[in-house]
């Protein structure tokens, strides 16, 4: 299983599902990590944590522990111009 936490800078992926519970988890869902959404892993912070993700139209920073709640499937070449 691949999670958002396993991606490397520049890689694009699609959300398979979100696993977890609690308030942080709910916030992630609300921010748009829902099944089928494509995202780009942009970079990690200088000390390795947190990470920056481009999600649909905006950039979001989250901790690695939080990124591990999001199961993704890696897309080698993301089709352009998709929602």
């Amino acid at each position, binding site marked *: 299983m691949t999670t958002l936490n396993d991606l490397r800078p520049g890689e694009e992926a699609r959300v398979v*599902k*979100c696993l*977890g*519970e*609690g*308030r*942080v*988890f*709910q*916030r*992630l*869902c*609300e*921010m*748009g*990590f*829902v*099944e089928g*959404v494509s995202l780009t892993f942009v*970079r990690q*912070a*200088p*000390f*390795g*944590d*947190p990470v*920056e993700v481009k*999600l*649909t*139209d*905006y*950039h*979001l*920073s*989250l*901790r690695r522990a*939080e990124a591990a709640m999001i199961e993704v499937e890696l897309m080698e070449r993301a089709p*352009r*111009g998709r*929602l």
Partner: protein
Amino acid sequence: MRDVLTAASPALVGTVVVVGNPNAGKTTAFNRLTGLSQKVGNYPGVTVEKKVGRCVLDGIEVRLVDLPGTYSLAAHSPDEMVAVDVLLGHQEGEEPPDLVLQIVDASNLERNFYLLCQVLELGVPVVVALNMMDVARARGILIDAEGLSAKLGIAVIPVEAHRGRGIDELQGAISRVLRRTLAGTPGTGSAVSRDGALCLNDALHARVGDLHAELNPAFQRARGRSLHEFEVLRAVIDREGHAETRLSSVLGDSCLDRIQRVREEVAGEVPLPVLEAGIRYGWIRQNIEGHLRRTPVKAVTWTERLDRVLTHKVFGLLIFAVMMLIVFQSVFTWAQPLMEMLDGAFASVAGSVEGALSQGALRSLLTDGVIAGVGMVVMFLPQILILFLFIGLLEDCGYMARGAFLMDKIMSKCGLSGKSFIPMLSGFACAVPGIMATRVIEGRKDRLATVLVTPLMSCSARLPVYAIFIGTFIPDRPVIHGVLGLQALTLFGLYALGIVVAVAMAWILRKTLLRGSRAPFVLELPSYKWPALAGVLLKLFERAKAFLVRAGTIILAIAIVVWALAYFPHSSGIGADYARERQRIARELPPGAERTARLQEVGKLESGAYLRDSYFGRLGQHVEPVFRPLGWDWRISMAAIASFPAREVIVATLGTIYNMGGSVDEESAALRESLREATWPSTDPHRPGLPVFNIPVALSIMVFFALCCQCGATVATIKRETNSWGWAWFAFGYMTILAYVGAFITYQLGRMV
């Protein structure tokens, strides 16, 4: 805006609540609509800022209520519930809204529509301002506002708030819908809520509807208002959220089983937040489809280019460090001349009051109590303004989020978040603006921990205290092969002590009193933009006003109490003694320099005698045994106690106590002399005739001042920001204990060495 309010026409009055995501330009739009007529306060019982503005639109007097930026109406704390309560019209001290104005970031439509999707379910007419249309265009996002408006059945107005474009149309839409609502014919307020279908799927909607019908009668009897279906929905979805807590406290725990059953029926294995987000984003895509077009834009955005440098492993950190250094340095240096000017102004006011009134309690109250007290507060103002100008600019242009991104890893080691960094750094200048700056921290416990440890940072008011004791007692000797002086090393050590203790305290607090899951560090990194100077200045003005009014009243009260303790009983016997002495000098010496000097000398002796005889002086002699283990005599103890309202007072107090009058600053060579010469009385059982001050005593005093919460303004600010005297006294208490223990250890160790 047209002002058509006349005495003849009875005005319509309407309440508009403004909601939106953070970074959607909500504040800019709010400022455009209301101009300068805004009022900032707090909702009762919570730390949520209440901002209300007024304007007149087409003859309707409109009250605009600005809610804090939020991504969702899910509420896990009383603070988050305020938004829901205001929107539903249940908030104490707030009118039910006649209209909700939702500000949406057009360049990020999908995520912004998540909140809209929830707001539409509340059943209040909605107007959408599609803000930042220019940004969206630049990114190749084209939006058909009219089509969206038709599809959603609500007004959708394209706006560029920072340029003032579209504001007229927005005002027109607001007044049109408002007029209809106030006339009692909501019409097409919101197609979505009118047909009751909500945005939810049928199963969830039906179950929530049933549960609502079941719980409502009992709720109505208990609370005198009906329960809204949205509250039931939130209770179902937000496990252990605030809506659930409220229902169980009103209806008893039995309703929890019912809620749990609904959860199982609608979601099964799927976590409820996933269910809700799935439904809502599905609804969003359905409604946006055909009204939003993306054209591929090749160019790398400016934000991306900047971020490559500003979040870079080396350059990013370097730039951040330099930026913080500049902020910190300017708070120190830019504020200095302003503070001196204020100091001079207060001194001259005090001087003229002194000249106008004859000697006595009233004159002393006005000059030493009121003017010195007000001055103490106003003195902080330049630092606060400069710090908040920087913070405001950095926040508005989008850099603040990057700072938090860079620092989060380090800060999370001690249980804080990246957003705690700026407030704690500000604490080096002054804890008051630092504590006020914690408002950017989202999690309540993270924020509380930051508030409670920020006063441990060595603020600029501690510097004069360090300066006088280091300058007097620490030998100016080179250490580490002449790289550093011992004096500089001591100063550095005191700053380091504050940081180390703050980090340890934060860690302990997050493990004990403030234990709990860490707040999410799910932080949007908004696109960089030029800061809106008008908005930044307006916020600056609001904070300055709030600080002066609230902290000012409390500080003033404390200052007057301390003055009274240090002034009374003011026995006439002492005055008579010194009056005789003055007469004797006047008789024996001819007018001239010597007589003036002798008379001044007598004046200082007299104020010293009064202080020794005052309640404060008497108290000092009673508390000496308490401070004896720290190596202090009653005079130091008393000076330290007198410094609780404001720590820098110790310099003036020591001056007074050592018979020098109140006007001494840390550069005063005479004070240093008398500190060195001070001895214990020859009758003292432990150290007869020995010097009061030596290196361990000086260190013990400095450690005490480094750790102690001797600042009325800080205590008052903690009270204001946490909305609780409990936390304010907790901060005061734990710091006082730490200070005592720290000073004790320092003195005892120092004595052994």
